[in-house]
């Protein structure tokens, strides 16, 4: 069982969260000319890292806020959590 520290509510079990995928994927800027390749990278292509991975989770059965979590995809160790508005350093 993962044990995730919600930046708003504190430590909560994995059961309260739902997953939202890679947090480093950025939508191409609005109004900018977008190539097929850029759109592909945004919609489909993923690095799917083995090791440290920044990802989005939603505290669905809690405060309902989206958060960012840095987790190891091989060991499940969680290093850091951020509010969705905070930048990954």
């Amino acid at each position, binding site marked *: 069982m993962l044990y995730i520290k919600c930046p708003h509510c504190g430590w909560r*079990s994995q059961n309260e969260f739902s*997953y939202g995928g890679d947090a480093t994927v950025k939508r191409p800027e609005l109004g900018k000319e977008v190539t*097929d390749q850029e759109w592909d990278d945004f919609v489909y292509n993923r690095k799917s890292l*083995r090791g440290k991975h920044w990802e989005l989770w939603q505290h669905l059965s809690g405060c309902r806020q989206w958060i960012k979590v840095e987790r190891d*995809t091989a060991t499940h160790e969680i290093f850091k959590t951020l509010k969705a508005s905070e930048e990954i350093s």
Partner: protein
Amino acid sequence: MQKYSIFSLIKNAISNHENWDLAWKDPSPKKEYDVVIIGGGGHGLATAYYLAKEHNITNVAIIEKGWIGGGNVGRNTTIIRSNYMHDDNALFSEFGMDLWRRMSQDLNYNVMFSPRGIINLAHSDAQMNVYARRGNSMRLNGIDAVLLNREQVREIIPMADFSENVRFPIFGGLMQPSAGTARHDAVAWGYARQADSMGVDIIQNCEVTGFDVVGGKIKGVRTSRGDIKVKKIGLCVAGSTNILAEKLNMKLPIETHLLQACVSEPVKPVLDRVVTFGAGHFYISQSDKGEMVMGGDLDGYNSYAQRGNLPTLQHVLTEGIAMMPFLSKLKMLRTWGGIMDMSMDGSPIIDKTHIEGLYLNCGWCYGGFKATPASGWTFAHTIAQDRVHELNAGYNLNRFNTGYLLDEKGLGTKTWIS
């Protein structure tokens, strides 16, 4: 190679089974090969076998980081089916069903193919309509499909919950009578033994550390057991696809996720079909040893762990008990996990790449095991002829760019939603 038969069995019984030949050799890598297959799982072994058998290419090496058959071919729930609606999936899978039916004879190895039939349960009128549509599509593609009503399902699987006050009553189901199961390890070992006998080198404990790409062409592969010169490489590494893609500076529409399975303690024969729950994601069959073999949802987040967490297992087994209440009385014997190469439309990729001589076989999601022979056959064709076969033309990498997705389930790009 020693042929397995009743006579070889008797002969070896007399010498206390101490003189059987090794099923495959343990060679050191040569300096150069015509083709290198990376990944000694079911698909990689099958690819090497069909390269040798169908295309007479025998200067081939299979490179495996661990031991052959130790990944998903040794971790699945052994279900074989072709109950797909879209033409590309249906024709590919049905081609595979033909190979499954002949496999034990072809490989001279008993893979214990058991065409016991699969039943997908329906729990609403709407779902019955969807299954009728899928069944009709299957029959148009020459695949057997039977739509069962509630009473017909009850006759086949009376142990399911047919009581009145249940959350998901059984309305009926769609059955593919020719679907079934097979002994998963035997599939890997059978392909390995035959490939080896035709001259393929099976090299275990050999990790790929890098690639030599010059001018957009494959020149070689670097491994923990030395560099190998080669012009064609087939990548068959399932959940590790992204790790190797990164070494090639490729980004793929693949995420690696964890899928768990489990078996109960062995019990007397009770279930002679494969059954899936229609109001969630749960599938079950009974092994020849009597264990109930069960599986369901992904754990739901990127993972390379090859072991699962309890919440998903609880969720999956709750569905199982809702479908067949007697399961609550059984003790769990083992649980395990494997890492799935989840593609962004739920369908696999067997294709050439922008690098000349690099061929890609990945994105099998939940359905890798049943596809083993057809995947190996079409991938061998793609590598040998340097062009895709019509059977795997729909499994191209380009579809994510053009928008011609093969979205059998229509789930979109959230691969963790299952």
